[in-house]
């Protein structure tokens, strides 16, 4: 690419906490703390921040943050559409475009989550208004084709692609167990991870089913917390104090005929047992002139462990159907794996803040992870599979 490369020059976060523990602070307070920490990490005066980007219907916007921080000039504020953490790297696409074009000089990508402030997972469904009611007043709603049949939560939805993957390829729940064990082993080294007690394959096999084949130990957490990172141009990055992390490429997009809200399960049959990221991965690598073999560490969206199996296939690390054996035979651990995955412990064991895995990708390139991969030059970071749009990025030294 002839275009000037955008760079990441600062990262910030709040403490991560279990659902509800930071509710008293509110998302705005968390976001501001993360933004301030990102600027401090970069050694950049807060006044220099002139843009914000986020994703997934974030209730906060750049105007709110600029007002609270008293910024002298807000030049850019944008949000990438998409559900959950799917378009987390879409926000990086926006920030990168903004600094490349000169729309803004220092753009903060941020995410703050207070679980109970948003309609999330099962909790919003319960209560006296639940039974016998219309799914929604929106006649275009997709959930009218799923909720009347008891398909209610992400774990249940993602169990469907996992089950078909098992039927098509012989993938086993033990493959999923290997992912869970590896995530927890990584988290045990990470002081900010919330779930650090090591687990075994036996622990996984004894874990109760949430939605068969997905067990409790296949599920990510639900957390309160915030993350932020600062994007600028390579030229401006030279004046700052941290090692520069280059954005080799960042892409957002969707598989043809992949529903934005997958509740009705009407992706094409041929794509059903995938995460819907394969075309995007080809674009990610092709435009960057990088191959999957060049990737030193992958920070993948492990909302549920079967997604790691499918992501490995979508992203070209192995062929369709080979994700399970890849995990067992090639390995995904930070010290022994052919492809270390989620060296911070993932959403599974570090925290679920939609963007904390991006911060880990930056740490790996900086060389500051608590499970540092040797000679780590290229990191791949992924948004939630199974949605549209979803997103991917390649970070490099």
């Amino acid at each position, binding site marked *: 690419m002839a275009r000037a490369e955008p760079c990441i020059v600062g990262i910030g976060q709040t403490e991560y906490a279990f659902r509800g523990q930071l509710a008293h602070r509110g998302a705005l307070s968390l976001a501001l703390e993360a933004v301030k920490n990102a600027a401090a990490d970069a050694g950049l005066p807060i006044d220099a921040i002139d843009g914000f980007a986020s994703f997934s219907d974030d209730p906060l916007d750049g105007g709110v943050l600029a007002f609270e921080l008293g910024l002298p000039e807000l030049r850019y504020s944008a949000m990438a559409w998409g559900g959950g953490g799917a378009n987390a790297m879409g926000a990086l696409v926006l920030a990168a475009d903004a600094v490349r074009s000169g729309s803004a000089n220092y753009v903060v990508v941020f995410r703050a989550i207070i679980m109970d402030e948003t309609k999330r997972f099962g909790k919003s469904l319960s209560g006296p208004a639940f039974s016998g009611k219309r799914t929604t007043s929106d006649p*275009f709603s997709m959930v*009218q084709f799923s*909720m009347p049949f*008891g398909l209610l939560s992400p774990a249940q939805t993602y169990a469907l692609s996992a089950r078909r993957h098992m039927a098509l390829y012989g993938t086993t729940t033990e493959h999923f167990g290997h992912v869970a064990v590896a995530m927890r082993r990584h988290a045990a080294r990470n002081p900010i991870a919330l779930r650090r007690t090591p687990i075994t394959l036996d622990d996984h096999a004894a874990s109760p089913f949430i*939605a068969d084949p997905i067990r409790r130990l296949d599920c990510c957490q639900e957390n309160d917390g915030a993350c932020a990172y600062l994007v600028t141009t390579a030229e401006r990055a030279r004046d700052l104090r941290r090692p520069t992390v280059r954005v080799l490429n960042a892409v957002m997009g969707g598989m043809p005929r992949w529903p934005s809200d997958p509740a009705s399960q009407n992706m094409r049959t041929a794509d059903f047992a995938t995460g819907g990221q394969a075309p995007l991965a080809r674009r990610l690598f092709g435009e960057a002139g990088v191959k999957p073999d060049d990737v030193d560490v992958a920070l993948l969206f492990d909302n549920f462990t079967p997604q790691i199996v499918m992501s490995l296939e979508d992203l070209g690390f192995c062929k369709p159907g080979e994700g399970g054996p890849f995990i067992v035979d090639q390995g995904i651990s930070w010290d022994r794996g052919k492809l270390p995955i989620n060296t911070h412990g993932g959403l599974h064991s570090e925290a679920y803040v939609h963007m904390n895995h991006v911060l880990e990708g930056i740490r790996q390139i900086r060389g500051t992870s608590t499970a540092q991969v040797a000679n780590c030059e290229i990191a791949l970071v992924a948004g939630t599979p199974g949605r549209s749009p979803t997103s991917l990025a390649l970070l490099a030294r």
Partner: protein
Amino acid sequence: MAFFPIPFHLPSLEGPAAPYWAATREGRLVVQRCADCQAWRHPPGPVCWRCRSANAAFEPVSGKGEILSYTIVHQELVPELAGVGPYNVIVVSLAEAPDVHIVSNLVGTPNAEIAVGLPVEVVFEVVDAEVALPRFRRVEVSS
């Protein structure tokens, strides 16, 4: 017999899916189809994904298909589900339109016997005067 002892959220009876639910109430499964290029589409929407025509009709289908995937739900996510589960959720790929997937439940077969590829056919559970939900039962294949 009702699949769930307490009816869950019910579909919208207005908007593009109204003919779909009107048909299920009459005991018919219909799928929206482009009147110009004949592409099936589901959930119902305003234009054809293939030729972008706005001309469409709801065509009856046999209600036969196969289980594309399924899950057995153990978690009692809401109070109304206390003691109900484990219950199944299936995704049916329709015989006439394999890319049309119907999320539903399998009735009359133990959860342990559910499998990907199992042939099924539609049955209707009348919920009230306005709504009937399409569910599925196993089809015994003669050898």
